[in-house]
């Protein structure tokens, strides 16, 4: 029972890291980026390639996954995304679906359609008993990293100069620009950071979630649930939503496997009917 809770928390933390980049682009920058999963997948595949082809340590792969996907995010933001900030949502949806399709086919072409496996370092494998709760070492590792990241993100967004500049740029880009804030630089940095977090999540999740070319579509719904249910006005909303989703999904799959993903979709639709702007939104949202 507690083990399930623990697994659920690990899963939820992972979802949060995967989705929080999306909650920034979608919530703060108001861009419907369905291609966020593609960045996560890229992070996962970078890890797979580095570990399995070049034998590089797992611990080096994580920052590499972050940096490379962040770079890719920055390049794409500069070249493509930037032009669509003011476009209707339909355009953004179509554009990012196109990106998803391209990434799926490209990965399929380069890496093949099979499930990718990675070999975790020995100290992260297995599980141990703690007060009668079976704790997977790797899951504990994921939880610790994600918790540190979540706290850091929250602090960065609320306490630092960059955080307040970002919030200003998002609330009213024109006024922020008038105040001498370099809005486009902030957007590209934020977008790159969000993509990088997605890549890091993909790298961390390669073992827990599985990795194959359909990753962006398979987990798209999870990311979107986290963001829409959590509301987009803060970091803590998606965080709680991700934890709830993780626990509910793991528990649901364990206790009532025949219902499958049914519960999650039903709960999401219900939440969206009752609270169209998310469970934890402050001011009705935009």
């Amino acid at each position, binding site marked *: 029972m507690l083990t399930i809770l623990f697994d659920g928390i690990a899963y939820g933390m992972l979802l949060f890291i995967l989705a929080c980049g999306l909650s920034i682009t979608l919530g703060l920058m108001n861009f419907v980026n369905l291609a966020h999963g593609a960045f996560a997948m890229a992070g996962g595949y970078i890890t797979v390639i580095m570990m399995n082809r070049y034998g590089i340590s797992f611990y080096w792969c994580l920052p590499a996954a972050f940096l490379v996907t962040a770079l890719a995010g920055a390049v794409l933001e500069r070249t493509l995304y930037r032009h669509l900030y003011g476009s209707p949502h339909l*355009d953004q949806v*179509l554009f990012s679906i196109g990106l998803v399709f*391209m990434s799926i*086919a490209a990965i399929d072409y380069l890496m093949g359609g099979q499930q990718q496996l990675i070999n975790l370092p020995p100290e992260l494998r297995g599980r141990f008993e703690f007060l009668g709760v079976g704790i997977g070492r790797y899951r504990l590792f994921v939880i610790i990293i994600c918790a540190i990241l979540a706290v850091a993100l929250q602090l960065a967004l609320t306490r630092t100069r960059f955080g307040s500049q970002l919030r200003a740029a998002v609330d009213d880009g024109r006024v922020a620009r008038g105040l001498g804030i370099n809005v486009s630089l902030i957007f590209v940095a934020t977008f790159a950071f969000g993509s990088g977090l997605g890549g890091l999540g993909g790298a961390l999740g390669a073992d827990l979630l599985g990795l194959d070319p359909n990753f962006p579509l398979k987990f798209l719904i999870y990311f979107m649930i986290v963001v829409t249910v959590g509301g987009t006005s803060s970091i803590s909303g998606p965080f709680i939503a991700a934890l709830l989703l993780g626990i509910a999904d793991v528990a649901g799959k364990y206790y009532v496997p025949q219902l499958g993903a049914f519960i999650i979709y039903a709960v999401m639709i219900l939440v969206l009917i009752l609270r*169209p702007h998310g469970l934890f939104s402050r001011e009705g949202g935009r």
Partner: protein
Amino acid sequence: MSGEPAAPSGQAAALLRRAERWQLWEIALWIIAVAMIFVMPSHMLILTEIAILALLAVSLDLILGYAGIVSLGHAAFFGLGAYSAGLFAKFAITEPVTGLLFAGAVSGVFGLATSFLVLRGSDLTRLMTTFGVAMLLAEVVNQTGWLTGGADGLSGVTVTPILGLFEFDLWGRTGYIYSLIVLMAVVFISRRIVNSPYGLSLKAIKRNPTRAAMLGISPNRRIVVIYTIAAVFAGMAGALLTQTTSFVSPDALAFHRSADVLLVLVIGGAGYLYGGILGAVIFTILRDWLSVITPQYWMFWIGLILIVIVMVGRERVTRWQALLPGSAANREAKARAAALAAARDAA
């Protein structure tokens, strides 16, 4: 049509009458579609596919192009229609037209029930709820394997001759004619709908729901109605797929189908009904061609096309509409040119 003599409504009625008039290119399009039966007898199957996709796209056009609702889950109605037609044929009546109407009715009821989900919230909420509904249905089909065959699909659907008279042949000729007739009927009905005062009020809602509400046009009821109608048509498209292939696979509910039909509308242009048909023709030919060149990876090129279209601008891609004689855009362009000329004369 309101026949009141009052000036503004008279003007509006005249406008609607003009919009409803049959254009030369529309008639030409249908003649070509019919002529295909004799010109390309060996390509009946792909033509049927085009007709079904066009029907689905037309139904999406009703809610996207006219009511302005962005849906990522239109395949839900398509799949529901496909499965209900399949099950209906398997367990009740095997006659296709009855099955078609039944599938349309089931899908319509479902559309009515879920239409209340798209009334509230922003584009994003709508995207998520429509997407969620489609995924939910796919999950139901997947889990009720005893009824729907699960991931293997529903096989053993027997289809008897249409109305007991026209048997489906091996080359798909009957199937194409049948699909084409349904497509025609749906387009005729849709034309009536969008060129009625009701259709005009939908366009007002699309432009600005708040202003429409202030003018006394209640958006909610109208959106519910059009959503239900679109669901009926989409369900019929699904039923056609089942009946012409005697098989239903969970693919009918897959996400990529919703995305495909959006792409079809984007290629053809939304908001004038025929965009779905032209888009379906282009899309299907394109996909066929791409999957011959790069089997398995045609998705890449579809994605690239989507991105290019968005980057170039959807309006620019579909600007050729204005070249069609008698289209609304063309009329506007002419009117603008006339106004310019008049201004020049006055100066």
